[in-house]
C-alpha cells in the first residue's frame, strides 16, 4: 500500500520536470488531432493520449516486475538489494528534480537506444482515430525518461508481474493530473512548477522518501507480529 502511495506521489512530484517536455508533446499531439475548424476542447483526445501513456507505463511495470522476480527468485536477500537499489534511484530522481545533480539523465541515454526501433511503428498513425491516439499515447509513455526508469527500479524490487504493473499504474495516475490540466491550467501549473523553491521542496521530499526506505532496510528488523 505504502509503495503505491509513494509511486503516486512521485508521479505528482515529477510534474515540474514534465511541464516543458511532455507539455510540448501533448501540445503537438493535440494540434495534430484537432479537426479543422472545430474549436472545442479536445478533452476526449487528452484522455485517450493519457490512457495510452498509462497503458505503456503499466506494460513496462509488469515487465520490470517479472524481471525482478526472475532476478531475485523470490528470495529475501536479493529482494532487499533490489529495494536498496530503488531507494538509491529515488534519491537520484530527487536530486534531478531539485536540479542539484543530473546523473539520472544518463539512464535516458540507455533508454533512447531501446526506444529507436519503436519509432518506425508510429509513422502510420492517424491521430483523428481514437484507437490510434491510444497508440500514440503509448509511444509517448515509452519516451526515454529518467524518472520512469527510476520508477521501474522500484517496480523491479516488487518482483511480481501484477505488483510491478500496479506500481507503474499508480505512478501513471499521479502524472495524470498534469496531463488533464495541460488544457486550462497549464499556465498556472507552469507558474507553480517554475517556482524553484517548490521544485526543490519536491526534490527534497523525494530524497527524504528514498532515505527513509534505506533506513527501514537497515533498521534492526524487529517487527512485531
Amino acid at each position, binding site marked *: 500500500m*505504502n509503495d503505491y502511495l509513494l509511486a503516486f506521489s512521485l508521479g505528482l512530484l515529477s510534474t515540474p520536470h514534465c511541464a516543458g517536455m*511532455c507539455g510540448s508533446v501533448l501540445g503537438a499531439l493535440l494540434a495534430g488531432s484537432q479537426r479543422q475548424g472545430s474549436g472545442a476542447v479536445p478533452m476526449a483526445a487528452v484522455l485517450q493520449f493519457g490512457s495510452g501513456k498509462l497503458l505503456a507505463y503499466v506494460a513496462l511495470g509488469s515487465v520490470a516486475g517479472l524481471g525482478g522476480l526472475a532476478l531475485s527468485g523470490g528470495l529475501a536477500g536479493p529482494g532487499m538489494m533490489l529495494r536498496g537499489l530503488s531507494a538509491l534511484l529515488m534519491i537520484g530522481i530527487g536530486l534531478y528534480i531539485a536540479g542539484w545533480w543530473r546523473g539520472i539523465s544518463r539512464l535516458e*541515454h540507455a533508454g533512447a537506444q531501446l526506444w529507436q526501433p519503436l519509432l518506425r511503428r508510429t*509513422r502510420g498513425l492517424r491521430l483523428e482515430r481514437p484507437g490510434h491516439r491510444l497508440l500514440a499515447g503509448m509511444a509517448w509513455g515509452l519516451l526515454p525518461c529518467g524518472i520512469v526508469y527510476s520508477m521501474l527500479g522500484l517496480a523491479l524490487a516488487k518482483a511480481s508481474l501484477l505488483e510491478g504493473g500496479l506500481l507503474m499504474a499508480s505512478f501513471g495516475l499521479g502524472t495524470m493530473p498534469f496531463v488533464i490540466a495541460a488544457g*486550462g491550467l497549464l499556465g498556472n501549473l507552469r507558474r507553480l512548477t517554475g517556482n524553484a523553491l*517548490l521544485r526543490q521542496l519536491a526534490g527534497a521530499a523525494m530524497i527524504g522518501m528514498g532515505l*527513509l526506505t534505506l533506513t527501514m532496510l537497515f533498521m534492526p528488523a524487529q517487527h512485531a507480529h
Partner: protein
Amino acid sequence: MLDKVRTSLCHHCQAPIPEAERCEAQIGDTLHSFCCQGCAGAARLIDALSLNAFYDYRASCATSVAASSQRRARDVQDYLPALSPAAEGGVSLRLLIPDLRCVACVWLLEQVLGRQEGVRDVTVNFARRRLQVHFDDSARLSALVSLIEQLGYSPVPDLPDAEREAGKALWRAQLLRLGVAGLCMMPVMMFAMASYLAGPPTAQNPASGMDPLYETLLRWASLALSTPVVFYSAAPFHRGAWQALRHLQLGMDLPVSLAILAAWGLSVYNTLSFGSAVYFDTACMFAFLLLLGRHVELISRQHFEDNAEHLLRLLPATVRRRSACTAGEFTTIPLAEVVAGDVLQVLPGETLPADGVLLEGSGSISDAAFTGEPLPVLRAPGARVLAGALNHDGTLLVQAASGAQDFLLTRLARLQDAAMAYRPRWSLLADRAAAGFIGTVLMLAAGAGVAWHLAGSADAWVIALTVLVVACPCALSLATPVAITVATTTLRRHGVLIRHGAFLERAAATTTVAFDKTGTLTEAQLQVQSVIPLGERTEQECLAMATALERHSEHPIARAFAAPTSLIASEVDVVPGGGVSGMIGGIACRLGQPAFACPGDPALTPPTQEGLWILLCGPGPLAWIGLQDALRPDAAGMLDALRRDGMRTVLFSGDPSASGLRLAQSLRLDEIRTGMSPAQKIAAVRAEGARGTVMMVGDGINDAGAMAAAACSVAISPRDVLVQNSADATLVTPALQGLPAMLRYARRTRRIIRQNLLWSLLYNLSAIPLALAGLLPPWLAAIGMSLSSLLVVFNAGRLRRMEG
C-alpha cells in the same frame, strides 16, 4: 546535405541546454540540439507522427514577429484601461482572446510573448480565454498587442474585475496550501507507518518496537513537517471557525479546525512529554484531504458559475463615441461613461456596446446572449438593438438609449444574481438544522472521547477527532445552493431567464398551465388572409402591387408581404402611422390605413370587424387586404407535450374575436374562455389555483394581475421585443417547445436537490454512529466528508444538461 542548427535552446522544450547534457538528433534533414534524450525522443516522435508542422508553426510565428509593424496610436488607447501596475513592479496587461483555439495556442502565446524583451511573465488560461502578461515598461504595450495580432489572434482588453481577481487569488493560494500539505503529509505518513510497523513495546517483549531514539527522532521530524500544514495549509479552516465564533455562531469550519488543532496539539504534548502516541499524520491527512475536497469543489463551482459571469463580460470595456463637434471624429471612452443619446460606432465582428437604435449601416446581428439562438438576423437602420448582441458584418452607428446600468443585459445579470442567491424554504431549514447540528457534534465528539477514555481505549482521542470530522454537515449546506446556481445558468443558456429562484420550486409543482391570451399561441406576426378587389384589377395584381410597395417598409405589416414580385415601386415614401406610398408603372399608389390610402373617401369601411384590414388605392380604391395572425407551428406539439406530462391546459383570453376562438379550438385545450376582463381572469386563475398549482403563460406586459394570482408565471417573448415584464420567468427563444422542456427541467432540479439533501442526511446519520463506535479510521472519515460534499456538487453538475 545535412543542416546543423546549433542553438543554446532545446529544439523541443525551449529550455536552455546545459552544455554537459547537450545531445543532437536528426529531424528531417536537420540536426537539432536538445537538452536531454527525452526531448530528442519527443522530437523524433513528433516527426514520426508527421506533426512537425507544430514546430514550423511556432517558428514561423516567431519570425513574423521580427517584422512587427507599429500599431496606430489611437487604437492603443483602447488597451490602456486593461493595463494595471503590478505588485512586483512593472505593469500587467489583461486581454481576452476570444479566438484561442487549442492548447497549442496557449503554448505558442506563452512562448512567443515570454521571449520578448522586458516581459517578465505570461499566463494564458485556455478555459477562460484570458491572457495576462506582466512586463517592465508600459511603452511596450503597442508592440505586445500587435505581436498577438500578428500571431493571428484578436485580443480584446479585459478590464480588471475585483471579484474575479479575488477568485483567482483564492484559487492560487488554495493550490499552494494543498501543495504544501501534500508534500509535508507524505513523509509524516511514512514516519507514522514506520513506527506503526515497528509497533509499541509490549509486555511480553519489552525489547520489541522501535528504538526509542529513532522514535523520538521521527516524532520531532513529524512535528517540524506537520507544523506548516496545521498553521499554513489549514489556516482557512481556522479563520472560518474564528470568524463564526466571533459572531457567536458555530460555523461549518469549527469541527474541522478543532480536529486538526487537537490532533496536532495532543501530539506536540506527547512528543514533549514522551507520551504514548502521536497523531501528526492524522492532523496532516485531515488538512490535506479536506483541502483537496474544497479545492475540487471550488474548481467545479467556478466552472458552473462561469456562465453567469460571462453575461456582463460580453460587453466591451470601451466604446468609440462620435464627437459632438467634429463630424466623422470618434473618441474612445469607457463604457461606463456612455449616456442616452450618444452615437457609437460598432465595427464588424464587435459586440454591440449599448441598447439603442441603429442609425446608420445594416448588418447581420445575432442575439445569442439573450436567446441562445446563434443565427444572425439582418437589421436595417431604425431597428432596435441590444448591448451584448454580436455584429457580424456591418459597420454600424448606434444611438444609445440609456447608460450602461440600464441595459437589458445589465438588468438580466442583476436578475440572475438575485435568482441564484435564492434558497428555498426547506433549504433554509437545512441550514438552521446544520447550525444546531454542529453544537450536537461538538458535544458528541467530546462525549465519545471521554467515554472511550474511561473505557480505557488508547484510541479515545482519535475517535473523538474522527467524530468531529465525519459529522461536519458541509454537504447538507451545499446541497441546494449549488443546484440552484447550476439550474439558473443552464436555463439562461437555453433562453429561459428566471427572475427569482423560487420559480424553479413552483414550476416543479405545476399541474395546470394557463395561457393568458391567444397571441401566446400565435406567431404574433401578420399574414395575408384575404384580398377583396374593389376595382377592375384582380386579386393577384393587387397583391403584387402591395408587395412591391411594402418591400421598402420595415413596419411589422410589411413582413406579411414576403412573396416575390416582379413589379417595381419607385419614389417610395413610408409614412409612420399611415402607410406606404409610391409609383408603380407610372401610377401613384397608396397602401395603408383607409384615411391615409384614400383620404378623399372617408366612408370606406372594412368588409368585417374581424382581423386587420388595409386599403390599396391607385388612384381610386383597388382592394381591401385582410391580415391575420397565424397559429405558431409548434403550438400543437407544445400542448401535446404538456398533456403527455399530465398538465391541464387552459386558455383565458381577453380577445373577444371569433377567429381567435376558432384558432384555439383547433389546439384541443382542456378549457377555453374568451372575452374575459382582467378581473375575470384573476378570478379564473384563483379558481384553478384551488385545484392545483397554476402557471400562467402570456406576454407578461398587460396581465400583471392574472400573473400575480398564479403560483408562477412565464412570459413568452416574441423576437425584437424588450424583455421587461412582470413574469417570474421569460422564455426568450420563440420556440414554444421550451415551455414543457423547462417544466421538466424544473422537476429534475427539484429531484436533484432532494437527492442531495437526502444523501447528505443519510451520510451524516450513518457515518456518525460508526465513528462513535470507533469503527471508522480517521483517513476514511476525512475522505468520506470530502466525498459527500463533492458528490453533492457533482450531482448538481448533472443539471448542466437541459435534457436527461
